[in-house]
């Protein structure tokens, strides 16, 4: 038995039956990291020794009959933009290269309450700005399916680590597709919850009205389990929603009979790779066979949503990243004679090119003379996008689209052209613009054995519907039994 190939619910079962100890599980992951991390480069920080020590302590507690969560002693990886007390949180930026958070993010506290063990902090595009993880200051993460290709981004380290069995599951964050698109590229399951379902306290802010933390997992049940842990109201995030806690595993019943699935035809048009389209069409046929009612309709907002997204996200980023001034934390230049120079040189030396580009774009669209034409207009278009989705959800339970127009692309092919990189988000951003939940699950591979992702979009706080639709497809298609990453290249 390869322990690292098991899902978390399988590990949970084996812990309960005492077939495995936490130490055995963590040791298997440490061995795997030692063998494969050099190829994948998913981590910014690994915590192997600490994790092993913690595992032994948990086994001891279990042996002594202490009451522990059924997940206690299972490891997890965390994207490096969530604050972990006493462990570096770098956002893959030179700006935060040495930053050690003085507190834990709410999601990290929740993982700790379950006694999950942090195996390390995962690589990402700097400040979560990017779609390939090539914009990390530290290293370029490789896609385990083909090491010459990108893992997607910005949660590329998280998705690659789960795909390569370096962690059993991971947390990512999604502002415009940063959980779903890398999950699609790496053949794993990525869920972006409804805005407000998961607290953002302690998540380094990129675009506050769009950011949301979510699970990246091997399968849909694990996704529901991790969502159970991290969802919930938090008074330290005023946008977090106060509602009854749910058990998202309860509604995974493998039945989609009568489920109304809408197919927005614009998401299958120009620019979508033919092999991606073909696999999506097969998936649609599978849903029909399983008894879902599938219908095509028009949702002509993808281009508007993408343009709106880059205006709003950059505007919010330019404001959020104003806090990095070299005074209280973060990189400080050696080269200054006065305060203004200290600010300017620290920021110019601490931020990478893509971050600077977005700050400048954001400052531009917020500056007088352009505010109305770009920022205000984008906020109106945001209302339009929401209305179009509202209309769609009057008729359908779930919407189905590709997660990305293409499979993982080769490294270096887009990083010089920012606009082309932005187009990688075309299928995912509208979900953030409207604050909806979306999940990406693998629905096949192309001729080169590269995974293809399907996105299911739900109405606000209807995670159960997309999770069950994803689960039902997964049980039927059995992607993980058919395909595994080959680490070629």
């Amino acid at each position, binding site marked *: 038995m390869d322990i690292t190939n098991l899902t978390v619910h399988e590990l949970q079962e084996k812990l309960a039956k005492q077939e495995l100890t936490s130490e055995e599980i963590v040791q298997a992951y440490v061995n795997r990291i030692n063998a494969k991390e050099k190829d994948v480069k998913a981590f910014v920080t690994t915590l192997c020794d600490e994790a092993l020590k913690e595992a032994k302590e948990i086994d001891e507690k279990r042996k002594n009959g202490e009451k522990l969560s059924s997940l206690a002693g299972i490891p997890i990886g965390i994207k490096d933009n969530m604050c972990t007390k006493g462990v570096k949180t770098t956002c893959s930026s030179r700006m935060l290269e040495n930053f050690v958070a003085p507190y834990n993010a709410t999601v990290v506290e929740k993982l700790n309450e379950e006694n999950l063990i942090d195996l390390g902090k995962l690589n990402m595009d700097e400040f979560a700005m990017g779609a390939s993880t090539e914009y990390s200051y530290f290293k370029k993460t490789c896609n385990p399916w083909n090491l010459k290709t990108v893992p997607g981004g910005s949660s590329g380290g998280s998705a690659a680590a789960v795909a390569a069995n370096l962690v059993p599951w991971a947390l990512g964050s999604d502002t415009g597709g940063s959980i779903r698109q890398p999950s699609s590229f790496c053949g794993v399951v990525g869920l972006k919850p409804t805005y407000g379902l998961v607290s953002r306290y302690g998540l380094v802010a990129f675009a506050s009205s769009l950011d949301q933390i979510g699970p990246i997992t091997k399968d849909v049940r694990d996704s529901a389990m991790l969502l159970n842990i991290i969802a919930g109201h938090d008074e330290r995030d005023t946008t977090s929603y106060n509602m009854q806690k749910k058990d998202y595993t309860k509604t995974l019943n493998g039945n989609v009979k009568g489920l109304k699935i809408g197919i927005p035809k614009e998401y299958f048009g120009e620019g979508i790779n033919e092999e991606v389209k073909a696999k999506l069409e097969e998936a649609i046929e599978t849903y029909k066979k399983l008894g879902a009612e599938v219908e095509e309709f028009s949702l002509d907002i993808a281009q508007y949503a993408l343009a709106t997204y880059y205006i709003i996200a950059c505007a919010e980023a330019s404001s959020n990243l104003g806090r990095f001034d070299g005074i209280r934390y973060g990189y400080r230049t050696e080269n200054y004679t006065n305060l203004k120079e200290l600010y300017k040189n620290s920021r110019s030396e601490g931020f990478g090119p893509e971050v600077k580009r977005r700050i400048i774009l954001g400052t531009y669209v917020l500056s007088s003379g352009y505010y109305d034409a*770009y920022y205000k207009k984008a906020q109106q278009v945001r209302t339009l996008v929401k209305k179009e989705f509202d209309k769609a959800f009057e008729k359908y339970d779930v919407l189905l689209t590709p997660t990305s127009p293409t499979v993982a692309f080769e490294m270096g092919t887009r990083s010089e052209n920012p606009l082309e990189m932005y187009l990688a988000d075309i299928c995912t951003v509208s979900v953030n613009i409207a604050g909806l939940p979306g999940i990406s699950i693998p629905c096949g591979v192309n001729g080169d054995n590269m995974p293809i992702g399907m996105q299911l979009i739900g109405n606000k706080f209807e995670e159960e519907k997309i999770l069950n639709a994803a689960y039902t497809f997964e049980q039927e298609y059995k992607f993980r039994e058919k395909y595994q990453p080959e680490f070629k290249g």
Partner: protein
Amino acid sequence: MAKVSKEELLHIANLADLNIKEDEIDNYLKNLQDILNFANIVNNANTDGLGETIGENDQCNVFRKDEVKEFKDNELLLANAKEQERNMFKIPKVIQ
């Protein structure tokens, strides 16, 4: 469609407290112009009579009790600053 000038770019960069080196200007101008041309698509959308969406939640004012909560890890907070003195962050002299 507005065309971004070099002066405008440098002004914006200064507002954002960023330096742009002479040999970076052309690249930044091209990138910014490309992205703005694309972003301009929003102006084709018919938004007559539509309000602005500024956040995702309908709730606007979220209140809590005005209670003092002490953050005890002052040392950890200060540890991230490059310069500190007497439990305070240190900055260069502002008033000459």
